Structures are given as C-alpha cells and as structure tokens.
C-alpha cells in the first residue's frame, strides 16, 4: 500500500510540470498583451507599456521567459500576479478555501440526496415510482448549472425570501490560525445546492444500480419483513456498498464539479478560485492562470489517488490501482 502511494506520488511531479508547461504555452499565445492590460483600460502613451514590459521581463525571448518561470516553479515559487502585484500563492490562499467549502458542501448534499434517491429507486424498481425517481435524478444531471442557479435564486431568494440572494457574507467566523473566513452558512445553502444537483443524479443512478446488482434491495425487503435488527445489519452492508458510487462520482466528476463551481461562483458572486482563474485568463495574468491550474490539477490527481485508496479500504477485494475508475464518462 505504502509503496503504491509513493509510486503514484513520485509519478506526479513530471505530470504536473508537463501540465503546467502546456498551460503556460497556451496562455502565452492567447492574443492580447499583458503589459498593455497592466497599464489599464484607457488609451495611453505606448512608452508606459514598454516600461512595464521591461519591468516584468516580458520583452525577453520567449524560451528565456519560459525557463525563468520553470526555474522559479522548481523552487516552489508560483510567481507574482501581473495585475494584483502579489504572490500567486497568496491568491490561492484567498480563493481556494471558498471553492473548497463550496465543493465540500455540494458533495455532502449530493451524497446525501443521491444515496436517498438511489435507495428509493432501487426499492421501487420496476414500477412507476422507480422510473420517476430515475428521471428526476437524470434531470439533475441534465440541467445547466448556471441556469438552475438562476432559477433557484429567483425562487428561494427573490420570490420566497427564504435565503440570501448571493455573496459570501461579510460576517462569517474566522478559522483560527490560517486566516480563512468561513461563509455565513445561509449564504452557502443555495450555491451548494446548485452545485450538488448534477452529481446527485449520478450518485442516485449508481446507488440504484449497485443496490440492484448486489441484491441488497431484495435482502433488505426480506429482512425488513422479518425484523428490524436484521435490517439494521444489512443497511450497514448496503450503505458501505453504496459509498462506492459516491466515491466514484466524486473521483470521476471532479472536473465537472469544478466547471460547475465556476458557473456557480459567477451566479452567486462567490469569491472562489474558478472565477479567479476565468478572470485571470481574460486579463492574460499568466502567473495566476498557470499557478491556479497547476494547483487544481494537483488536487485532481490527489483526489483520484484518494479515490483508489478508498475503494480498497471499503472493499478489500479491490487492489489499489487495479480497480481504477470505472470507465464510463459521467457528466
């Protein structure tokens, strides 16, 4: 097990550098001059742009710029934002926590809702309720995140007035020690719900099929007929099996989750990383784009490693790495 983890982690470094290089090249060649953008949005003296270009070394040959950047990266320096003039690591520190909190809340909601819906569907399989639940689950996975966000905002905030419209709130508690402020919890509800809907459907589908496949539903029905204590034992068994779909979907859907997060962050004015990267792309803030994408790629690799390990932990029959991730795209 330990060797496996070590092997995966050592394989990580070249992959990340390759990833960062690809993004660096891609962003570098997007038309639009970062020096020009640093100088502001108004017309101006071209000399100022030249001065800024020289300040950031953007006037040097491209391979040299790349090597400078790579050298810094290997020393663990992600660089400095052109626009904000502060370290990319600091920007990550500001914007990753809100995205993480949003994602965790969404995962919790989708796991809870998905397991419940999937269990319901498994029990009612073959009858109309089963189909209805299945279709409902599919609807969640089929709805554009940004659109459902607008609709939920319209319904729960503007029409019913139950929840705040948007924002992170300015009054959440500080997490001691790391300087991260939590969102006000009621501000979190709608964004998390919006983001949870797409994977909720996928989890529900997988839960249903896994319950059906292992026959747990049949067992449970029989057990329920015979007495509750037996049933409780089986629920444990069923839930453990049901965790596999949850983990699968999280592992598989990480990038979709992130895409959803960008849209959710936009709709609900959430100060997260997705929105920050999108804006940095628009501003040609190369260090921020590359640094953040690199960071997110690393997270994704770690997530998939964790998924592998969790599979093995839950079901001892699966060897880590041997199972891999089921190979059907789920978006």
């Amino acid at each position, binding site marked *: 097990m330990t060797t496996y983890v070590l092997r995966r982690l050592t394989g990580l470094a070249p992959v990340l550098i390759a990833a960062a290089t690809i993004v660096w090249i891609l962003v570098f060649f997007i038309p639009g001059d970062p020096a020009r953008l640093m100088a502001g949005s108004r017309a101006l003296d071209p000399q100022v742009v030249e001065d800024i270009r020289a300040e950031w070394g953007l006037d040097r040959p491209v391979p040299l710029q790349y090597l400078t950047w790579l050298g810094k990266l290997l020393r663990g320096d992600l660089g400095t934002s052109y626009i904000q003039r502060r370290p990319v690591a600091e920007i990550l520190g500001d914007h990753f926590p809100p995205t993480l909190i949003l994602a965790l809340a969404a995962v919790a909601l989708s796991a809870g809702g998905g*397991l419940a819906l999937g269990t319901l569907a498994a029990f009612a399989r073959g009858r109309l309720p089963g189909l209805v639940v299945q279709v409902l689950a599919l609807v969640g996975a089929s709805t554009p995140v940004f659109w459902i966000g607008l609709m939920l905002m319209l319904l729960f*905030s503007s029409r019913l007035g139950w929840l*705040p419209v948007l924002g992170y709130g300015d009054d959440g508690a500080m997490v001691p020690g790391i300087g991260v402020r939590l969102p006000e919890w009621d501000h979190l509800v709608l964004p998390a719900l919006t983001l949870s809907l797409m994977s909720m459907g996928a989890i529900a589908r997988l839960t249903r099929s896994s319950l059906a496949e292992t026959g747990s539903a049949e067992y449970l029905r029989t057990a329920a007929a015979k007495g509750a204590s037996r049933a409780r034992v089986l629920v444990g068994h069923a839930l453990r099996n049901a965790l596999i779909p949850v983990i699968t979907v999280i592992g598989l859907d990480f990038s979709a989750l992130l895409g959803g997060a960008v849209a959710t962050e936009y709709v609900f004015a959430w100060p997260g990383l997705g929105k920050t990267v999108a804006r940095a792309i628009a501003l040609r803030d190369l260090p921020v784009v590359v640094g953040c994408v690199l960071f997110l790629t690393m997270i994704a690799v770690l997530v998939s490693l964790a998924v592998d390990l969790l599979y093995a932990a839950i079901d001892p029959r699966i060897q880590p790495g041997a199972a891999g991730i089921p190979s059907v795209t789920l978006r």
Partner: protein
Amino acid sequence: MFRGVTASRPCPAVRPFLLFLCAVAALGLACRNRETAGPAAEQTFRFRIREDPPTLDPARAIDQLSEAVLFRLFRGLVELEPATMTVRPAVAESWTVSEDRLTYTFRLRDDVYFHNGRKVTARDVAWSYRRLLSPATKSPRRSILEPLAGAAAFARGATTDLPGLTTPDDRTIALRLEKPFAPFLSALTLMNTAILPAEVYEDPGEAYLRAPVGCGPFHFVRWEQSNFIELAAFDRFYGGRPSIDRVVVRIIENHQGALQEYLAGGLDSLDEVPEDDDPLAAALGDEILRYPFIGTEFIGFNHAVAPFKGNAALRQAFNYAVDKEYFHKTRHGNPMANGIIPPGAPGHDPSLPGYPYDPEKARRLLAQAGYPGGRGLPPITLWYNTAESLNQDMQKIQLDLKQIDVNLTLQSVDWAAYIAAIEGTPVRPGQAPMYRFGWSLDYPDAESILRPLLHSANAGPAGNYSRYANPRVDALIDEAMGLVDDAARAERYMEAQRIAVMEDAVWLFLSYYESKTLFKPWVKGVVTTPLGEFRIPIERLRIEKGSS
C-alpha cells in the same frame, strides 16, 4: 408483495432522505427574516462594483472601478464639484494663477491629516507628484504632470531635478508649466494626483496596494478579494466627519444577481437598473435616478484600411443606416448622439445635424461610395468586447445594415483580445475594420476626448484607433489648448467637431451616455453628477431609515 411492509413502516434506508429534506426545510425556515440590524447608531452604505478594482494605487488607477473606491480614500489639491463640474478647493484652500498662465501657486489647508494621523504638508504634495512622474512608478497617467517645466527629462529618468515643482514653505506649493495648458487645473482633479504619505508609499513590498492610506473622507478597513471592500468614516477628515459610518463596496459580477440583491435589501445603491419598460421599473419608481454622464458611445471605422479608407460617403451611408432612435426608445434610453462632444462638456453642439435614421439616403450614399446595393464590399467585421448588453445592441446594428444590403460579421472577444485587435501598434493599424467603443471624459473639457481620439499624433494605442488624420482638426485642437478664453476654446472645439462629424463622418455615432442608478429611499443627500454613479460623493449621504 412487500409493498405493505415498505409503506407501513418507513424503511431505515429512507431515513437519510427524510433527514435531508428536514435539513433543507429547517435551513429555509431558519434563514427567514435574518435581517440583523447592527448597532442602531451605525449607518452603513453598501454599493456594488462588477469586479475587483485592478489597483488601489492612485498613480496606477485608470478605470472606473478603481476610482469608485479611490475617491473615498484620497484627496488631491483640487477636486470637481460633482454637480456643476467646476474646479473647487480640496487640500488646497486657495490658489493663484500668474498672468502668463504658467505658474500655479497653491495654499494648503492647515487641518488636513492622513489616515495614519500625520499632518499633510506641501512636501507630501511634492513627493506624490514626483512619484507620479517618476519612471519607476510607470504610471499610465504621468501625462497629467508632463506640462510641468522639466517634467519630460524627469520622467525619462535623465535627471532627478524637477524645476517646475517647488515648495516655498510647508503650506505652499508652486507649479510652473513649460507652456500654457488650459485644462491643467481640471487635470489636477484626477485621482492620480492624490496626496500620499511617503512613509507608507515608499514600501518596496508594496503593502499599500492592499492597505491604502490617504487623506480622504473614509479610511480603508479591509479588502476581501472578490467579496467586498470595507471603508469607515475618517474622524479627522478636513471636510468634517461623514455621516455614513461604514461603506461596503460589494463585488458582484452577475448584474441580474446584483439587482435581486438590491431588491432583497442587500445593497443600498446599484449602478444598473432594470430595463425601463419593466413593471419592475414602475414599481421601483423614484428609486431609479437617470442623469447625463459625460461620455460618448460610437462605432469606430478603421480609416487606414479598405473599405473605409478615404471613403467618407461610405461612412456616412453606415451612419444613416442605423436606427439610433431605436436604441434610445427601446434599448437603453440613452440620448442619441449627434456628434462627439457630449452634453455637459464645453463644445457640445446641440445644433449639429448629425445623422438621423434614413435608410433611403443610406442606400444612395452607398451607391455613391462605389458599392451600389452593397455589391463589391469586402467582408466587414464589427469587433466588440464580450458583454451581454452589447451583444444585443450590436445585433441590432447588424440587422439595420442588412436592410441596406450590407453584411456585417460580429466578432465578440474578451477585452484583451479586443484591445489588441483595435489598437495595433503605433505603425501598424489594428485588424478590426469596425469596432464599438465608448469614451468617458476624464474631466469636463473637450480636450479630454478630441485630443486622444482624433488628433493624428495619437494614432494607434494612444487613443486614435480610427487613425483619423485631418490637419485642420489637428490644428484646431492644438490652437484651443493654448487659449485662455473659454468661449474662444469652445468655438475651436465645435469647429473641429463639425469637420470630423459632418464632413468626414469619422465614426458611426450612436449615443451619449446616461447614468442610471438605483438608490433605496432611505438614502438621502444624493448629488447626481455627470462624472458617473461612482463619483457621487458618499461623504454627503445620510441614511434615514426612520422608525416605520
């Protein structure tokens, strides 16, 4: 078979789902009416900006979002009275201008303090001005001080002497110009000339970018990136402590969300209003303020490339083909533009005929231009930066030009690619044959729109993206700059405008801007200003929520 069992006794596995539903319902109930009023005495004013300000360094700020914050934190020697747009004292209590219009002598107030408690002196002004001009600062607005004697050499870094700037004593600062520059005082009202405490702004770590210190009515509290910026009233502000205790600048990109947030009470003011025909607009009634904004929206033609190069008839045909009244009546309600200089700036000419909608005339001119029925026209692309409201406006222009058989391709790209496509380099024209642009005046003087946008010396990135070059217009702009008499200057500007609009049809003229702002009824003391919604002085606002 097992139906009865499942139905009569909730199966244990269903429980998580029920719990989940309960949790959601509980959340909903708990959040209802969470209107927590702070200490009764505290007055908070919350308004919205779209994105994080690119910078809070006054020397580098060049956009509205930065100014929306900076004008609360900083003050310069002089400022514009928002309502009338006349120059009035700020940190300087008075000033004199020499007979030859070359020397400006300012006398500072005795009661001005920085937010860190230190008193403002003439040395601070001198330090701030040198910082703005210094090549190390790389300020895009160093040109404001370039009229100073010796400024050019100083800005190049050739010398550290700046003979145009002297401080005879702690409360006096004298500025001497190389040659007369009529709008100099107006230019000094720009926030870039704000007075800064050297002890804060000499920091090589640039901590001031995240914690600016000035001498304005509010002091900086905190900035949570992409979330909000918080300011608080400055007790020792020379103009008296503001009535508003706390200003929260909320950063909300999605304007529909911002509108709903305003309606829900999370904002006291919003820089966008619902479309004017909405039942909602009617319901909002007096909360909507509309007032002129000194700026012009237009579609630029690239005069350096075919087909617009040297073809005034074609440019006029396009002008007549577009139904500008439609924009006014059914799109945004902004007044139609008959020319370049907007109302409120000297040189605006209400009697200029402009180009009213006339598709027949447009067709005739198109034929005259050598493209009867649109035949022979190369493909023309209209570039604009991605924005949902622009999308619809540009599609309307596309539809209108289709009426005279001109096929327009729309090209919507992000700001960076857009700038690259229209500016080109000083020698090479941009690739966009047509581009949508808006220009707001930095200060109420036609100089600040005509020179950057139309003077041939500024062709390319300096502002004249059209690469328009007419020696007569150049001469008029240059002549006006040195004139003392305001009426005589306005005359030159009107003549330059007449040539550029009626003879050369330099752009496709669309509209003059208008600000549209929502204010909650409890916000009192709003002074609207042609400088835009973000220049409304918050220090003069009061919150009067009343007991009801």
